[in-house]
């Protein structure tokens, strides 16, 4: 690096950091809103727990054991629980970024008001992302605690489930932000929820090993982000970590980066005319 470019790049870095730092204002705003509606956030904690008890224990009483890819056998509840950490992270992030951001973008025009202040597009996108991440983290941590007390974490590596859940949440928050900017009316929610989120929830190996499905379908599933989220988190919780988990890690990081880029570009296109 030459002496000339040094201060310039420092300046750019400082500006970028100032924007990232200012995005916390939007988190502040969302906290202010939810102060009166905390029940909405809190109730989300129970969704994965109900699924864990209902499916994991209810069906688990009959199924009892599930073989993993490497042939090792685990109790059904210990198979489902880490997947529910991933789906909880996904749901927390997606609900916030799809429904709530859509409302603010299209009906309440909240961001138009925000943009008249020193807050810019970067601050808005990152602020919403950060907030969705906080919400998803709450759900993931709650699940982690339940799993711990139910003895469903089979490996010390399970501690890493929380940062992994954060990554899954970030990836889906960015995807939700990118996706919501393409929606035009409330009827359009059917498309991301019915055609993407729900099928992923059912088919990504949440409740059963996907190997029982036809091989073409398995290949399709392996392209989706939730599959990689579950593969990573289940790997950490069961202690079976290998090349596949590393691949999932890279996939999620890349998916996050690409979605965030699309989200920023789209939000700018929607708000700046």
């Amino acid at each position, binding site marked *: 690096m030459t002496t000339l470019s040094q201060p310039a790049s420092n300046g750019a870095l400082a500006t970028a950091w100032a924007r990232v730092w200012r995005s916390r204002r939007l988190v502040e705003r969302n906290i202010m809103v939810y102060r*009166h*509606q905390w*029940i*909405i956030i809190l*109730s*989300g904690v*129970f*969704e994965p727990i*109900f*699924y864990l*008890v*209902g*499916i994991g224990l*209810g*069906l688990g*009483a*009959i*199924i009892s054991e*599930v073989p993993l890819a490497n042939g090792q056998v685990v109790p*059904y509840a210990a198979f489902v629980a880490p997947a529910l950490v991933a789906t909880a992270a996904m749901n927390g992030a997606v609900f916030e970024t799809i429904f709530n951001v859509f409302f603010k973008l299209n009906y309440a025009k909240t961001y138009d008001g925000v943009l008249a202040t020193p807050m810019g597009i970067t601050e808005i996108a990152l602020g919403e992302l950060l907030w969705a991440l906080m919400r998803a983290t709450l759900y993931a941590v709650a699940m982690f605690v339940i799993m711990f007390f139910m003895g469903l974490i089979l490996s010390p590596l399970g501690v890493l489930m929380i940062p992994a859940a954060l990554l899954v949440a970030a990836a889906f928050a960015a995807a939700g932000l990118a996706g919501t900017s393409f929606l035009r009316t409330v*009827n359009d929610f*059917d498309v991301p929820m*019915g*055609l993407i989120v*729900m*099928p992923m929830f*059912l*088919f990504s190996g949440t*409740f*059963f*090993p*996907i190997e*029982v*499905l036809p091989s073409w379908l398995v290949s399709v599933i392996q392209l989706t982000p939730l599959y990689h989220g579950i593969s990573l988190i289940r790997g950490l919780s069961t202690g079976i970590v290998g090349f596949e988990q590393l691949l999932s890690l890279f996939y999620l990081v890349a998916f996050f980066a690409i979605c965030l880029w699309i989200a920023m570009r789209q939000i700018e296109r929607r708000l700046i005319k």
Partner: protein
Amino acid sequence: MTTLAASGHVWQRNWLVYKRLWYRSLAFGFLQPVLFLTAMGIGIGALLSTDDLTAFGGVPYIDWLGPGLLSAMAMQTATFESTYPIMNKIMWGRNYEAMLSTPLGVRSIVIGELAWMAFRIGSLAAIFLMVLTAFGITRSPLAILAVPVAMLIGTSFAACLVAFTATQKNDVGFSAIFRFVVNPLFLFSGTFFPLTQLPDALQAIAWATPLFHGVQLVRGLVLSDLNLAAAPLHLAYLLVMLGVGVVLADRNLRRRMAG
């Protein structure tokens, strides 16, 4: 007579809105059972041995699951339709205010809305039943009766939820309803696993909840093994719930619109 004619207008108003998007609603109504049955039926079915299946009355898991999901769909559709859209007509869009300034009364609105939901749920249940038949799950032509039963499940829930919605000042309470009522009922009404797997106390609670009775009726009709002794009890439960719901919905909406 006039109340009925007037509620026909309420029904018709919903039809005019729905007409623009009906194909979408029916497409998702078809897609949902196909996805659920494929994933849960086949995926979880593969984890169950023949021995395990005795818990499900000896039928394949997908056959046992299908009718349960149909009943749950009726509940979920009713829940969604009787929360946000009704709130919109009460408060945000003020449609009821406009309707009530015509000869229409509150009773016609309640009956019209419920008749509309019965129609919606009936059409979705019919599609669901076709999917079940395509998966080879239905055992007898009497399975067609699952459609009116689904309409009964749906309207029973809808009536109670309209009564709830009419008391709400904002939509915050809805997420509590979804999370703490609908979701647990979805999971613990003998939809995904037999209640016999639960501790006795929980079984007793499940017996007291409405979706359980709906699931028993629909599963009996679809799999052609209806318990004729218990069936009148299940039916009576849902009819009483519908009756109480209608009375409460009428009362609460009347108070809301007057105040």
